[in-house]
């Protein structure tokens, strides 16, 4: 399947891209992240500490065990610092 990945803050800086489209057979968001981390050093660096990552699935806050079926957009970012 094909999914749009968006990165924000230092996740974006470490990966060097604000967004990209990827093909994957991963079943969950967490599996997709692990797959990417194995692919290139910059992903490994961005995703080295999973506890420091937050994810949104189709623009709703979600978790690493969220299934990928039917998903179009996944965002990966550090804990938010609004306000």
């Amino acid at each position, binding site marked *: 399947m094909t999914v749009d990945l968006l990165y924000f*803050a230092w996740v974006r800086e470490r990966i060097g891209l604000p967004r990209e489209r990827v093909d994957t057979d991963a079943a969950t968001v967490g599996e997709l992240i692990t797959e990417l981390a194995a692919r290139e050093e910059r992903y490994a660096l961005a995703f080295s500490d999973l506890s420091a990552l937050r994810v949104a699935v189709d623009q709703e*806050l979600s978790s690493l065990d969220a299934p990928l079926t039917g998903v179009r957009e996944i965002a990966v970012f550090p*804990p938010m*610092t609004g*306000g």
Partner: protein
Amino acid sequence: MDIRVQPATFDPGAEANAFTAASRGSGAVVTFTGIVRDTEAGTLRHLEIEHYPGMTASSIKAIAGEAVARWSLDAVLVIHRHGALAPGEAIMMVATAARHRAGAFAAADFLMDYLKSRAPFWKKEVRTDGADWVDAKAEDEAALSRW
């Protein structure tokens, strides 16, 4: 419900007055304004605020809608800026109007806790001696358990 996500500066006092004028019947208006603080050493050039355009307004709307329902608010306003903000500039504001003070205070406090940790904004300090992403605080995450 008035939700604005914008790079432009705004006038918190003028917004508060317009908000109050539009909520006749409310006895209580609470506002919170967040302001860019310089570092202790006075080294801050600006605060860079990144956000997730596809999600920002909708997530704030969901939070504000919850506050309106929970505290029977007459009105709610959230303005949050993104982009480069100089020290002393307003980052964001929240205003709540209710019949009585308890609801207006609780709702504004609640909205701030959720905007801090659940709205997709990220702050970067750009200083004369470097630049760093602002870390989320454990106390901000913990504050959510109050609600």
